[in-house]
């Protein structure tokens, strides 16, 4: 039975949203022309915001370090364009809140060529130096969470990383950035993977790809030289196959214990985009100044896969794609299952932005909420085997403390429960509310 399950390459539960990837899956990645205004928020990764090291009026070149890490869980920032620092101040973030950022005005006459060096002699670097280099290069998890990549590389004593797992699942509907990267830059992916694998001292590299991307699976397999410690594992198409703990379960049939990290079972998981960024930095000297973004959804005129300099306003990206169709109601940064709603067209593209999705009336129509009839569909959807039905009821009753006994903090907010709920109950939002309250609640002064 166990062996049979292993063959299925799967995790339990999860949901099957339609893929919606046909809009952009076959479109080659194009480069967005440079615009004028760029805004680089200092806190575009998880952790401590970076600290600006430039001042207003200063001239910066593309790829130049403009902010230093503000702590260990923090990364550097680089200017996405050659131009002049216009202002360091508060700018609107994705969620509409103002946060510190560096605004740069691009030089209209600059070539915007990156000063591509020869890269870095990464083999000579010690692990510590390598980690520092990744941090300074500003590389974060490119799948959406934007968690600084170097933090995952810092393994405590006594822990050995045996497998480097590369996440090419791209289980979110609409998104095709990792798909296109695997198709168009398989060499870079494998080079980056080799650098990571050697530095981590891992035995092998495993690339997990959902089975709905047979072309990507094929092309990568073709690029693997015989004898290389790399293998591609096709995965069942199911959301959230790309959640790292789900993927570890699918590939290695191991459950990462609750409250622990993949490294505790000897695995380091990185997104395809992250690995390509590693290759770009260590082999070509280009820090993280741009990324691939899928622009898709029913409300966009010409869907596309684009290389976008970080800090580009969403407005410019959308304009390049022919603008918004009439009837646009909502835009999402990231995927439709876990992405964040975009508050205004002026917000910038961030390191963790894998997609800009434009939705119309049909997807955003108010759905009538019915009472929970305990049908159990959410239990069968939750990949963490939680009881979302109970959690939602408790959250509605504001019984947040009771929710701890139901392991509310094990929830990764993947949204499967909400997707599956026939009563249209905003379960994941209710859970988020409770987690937020439990984390940030201030006890009244005694």
């Amino acid at each position, binding site marked *: 039975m166990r062996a049979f399950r292993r063959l299925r390459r799967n995790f*339990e539960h999860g949901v099957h*949203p*339609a893929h919606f990837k046909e809009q952009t899956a076959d479109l080659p990645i194009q480069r967005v022309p440079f615009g004028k205004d760029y805004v680089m928020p200092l806190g575009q990764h998880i952790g401590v915001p970076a600290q600006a090291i430039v001042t207003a009026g200063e001239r910066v070149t593309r790829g130049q370090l403009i902010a230093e890490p503000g702590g260990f869980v923090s990364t550097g920032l680089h200017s996405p364009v050659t131009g002049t620092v216009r202002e360091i101040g508060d700018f609107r973030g994705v*969620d*509409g809140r103002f946060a510190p950022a560096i605004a740069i005005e691009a030089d209209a006459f600059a070539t915007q060529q990156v000063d591509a060096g020869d890269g870095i002699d990464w083999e000579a670097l010690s692990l510590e130096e390598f980690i520092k280099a990744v941090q300074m290069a500003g590389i974060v998890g490119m799948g959406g969470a934007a968690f600084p990549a170097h933090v995952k590389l810092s393994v405590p004593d006594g822990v050995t990383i045996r497998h480097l797992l590369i996440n090419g699942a791209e289980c979110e*509907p609409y998104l095709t950035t990792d798909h296109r990267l695997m198709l168009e830059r398989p060499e870079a992916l494998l080079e980056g993977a080799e650098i990571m694998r050697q530095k981590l001292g891992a035995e092998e590299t495993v690339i997990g790809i959902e089975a709905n991307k047979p072309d990507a699976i094929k092309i990568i397999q073709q690029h693997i030289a015989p004898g290389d410690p790399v293998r591609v594992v096709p995965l069942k198409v199911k959301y959230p196959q790309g959640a790292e*703990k789900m993927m570890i379960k699918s590939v290695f049939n191991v*459950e*990462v*214990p*609750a409250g622990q990290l993949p490294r505790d079972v000897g695995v380091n998981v990185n997104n395809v985009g992250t690995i390509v960024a590693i290759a770009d930095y260590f082999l070509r000297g280009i820090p993280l100044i741009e990324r691939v973004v899928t622009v898709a959804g029913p409300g966009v005129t010409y869907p596309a896969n684009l290389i976008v300099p970080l800090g580009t306003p969403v407005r410019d990206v959308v304009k390049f794609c022919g*603008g*918004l169709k009439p009837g*646009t*109601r*909502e*835009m*999402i940064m*990231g995927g*439709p*299952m*876990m*992405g*964040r*709603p*975009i*508050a*205004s*067209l002026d917000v910038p593209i961030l390191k963790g932005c894998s997609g800009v999705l434009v*939705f119309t009336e049909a*997807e*955003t129509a108010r*759905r009538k909420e*019915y*009472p*929970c*009839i*305990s*049908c*159990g569909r959410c*239990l069968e959807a939750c990949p*963490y*085997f*939680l*009881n979302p*039905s*109970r959690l939602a009821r408790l959250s509605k009753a504001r019984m947040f403390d009771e929710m701890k006994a*139901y*392991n509310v903090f*094990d929830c990764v907010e993947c*949204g499967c429960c*909400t*997707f599956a*709920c*026939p*009563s*249209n109950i*905003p379960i*994941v*939002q209710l859970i988020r509310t409770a987690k937020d309250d439990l984390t940030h609640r201030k006890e009244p002064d005694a």
Partner: protein
Amino acid sequence: MKQRDPDLLLFHAPLLRQGMTTPKAMRDVLLALAPATLASMWFFGLSAVLILASCIGGAVAAEWLFADRQARGESLRDASCVLTGLLLGLTLPPGLPLWMAFLGGFIGIALGKVIWGGLGQNLFNPALLGRAFLLATFPIAMTTWVPAVTDGGFLQVYPGNLALPFMQVQIDAMSSATPLGLMKFEQEVTPLTNLMFGKTTGSLGETSGLLLLLGGVFLWLRRDLDWRIPVSILVTVVVFSAILGLFDADRFPSPLFSVFSGGLLLGAIYMATDPVTSPVTPKGAWIFGIGTGVLVMLIRVFGGLPEGVMYAILLMNAATPLIDRYTQPRVFGRGGDSQ
């Protein structure tokens, strides 16, 4: 010309939903019951139509009457009270006075659902609660069984149907016993084919086992019911009767007889699976089903009544919160057995 930015909404992800909604699930169950309902009309003629209509009428009336004044009619839209009425009607004897059927539907919704706070809040299955109320209040009328229409044709109405409220109920001259009653009190076995195709005495919906199974398969294909519940109930009943059969094959009912007689299929597929009143956890569903099956057999074989499905389900309904509490699923990465 500068285009105006659209006013963007900030609905939180996930924006995608699967297609199923609660009213659709309710309508699926209604659809699944359609063959058995039509069969009841075939067997019992106009009486079946009138009884079902009275039950649904009572249920809808209660739902409407006790709804919020502003939201009146709103809660009717999910069709759940129509389903309650239909399910209740299918458990009633065909010769029951119509006013009792209406009252049963009304009480089922009023005391079985609205008083608890409406859909999703009730502890007991509303249809069965309505039936329990009728059985306790009108024991004679509720246990007077008439045979299926034989000669009068579709338009024949049982005289009992038309009894006026609170008048002496006419005991039907043609009354006869159900297969379970025959088994229990006279040790007479009804042929299995009759049980499967519905040529027996009994309440409206319980006479045609095959059509009920057909609807159950439809619901299972549509993922509208937790298959664990009917499967565990039926398996328990089969195993229980098989064990009894080892002791005395003549005295105790055979496994297939147990499954196809009485309201077991109707109860196991359509009532025990009411998501609101059954456990939400997979492990709990097994416990609930096995418990129901055991109780059904205990009541049928050792109790004073020929049929025990209703009380078995209601008793397990009462145990559901407790079952749910102690069968929380194992959380990913927290050890223990996998579901």
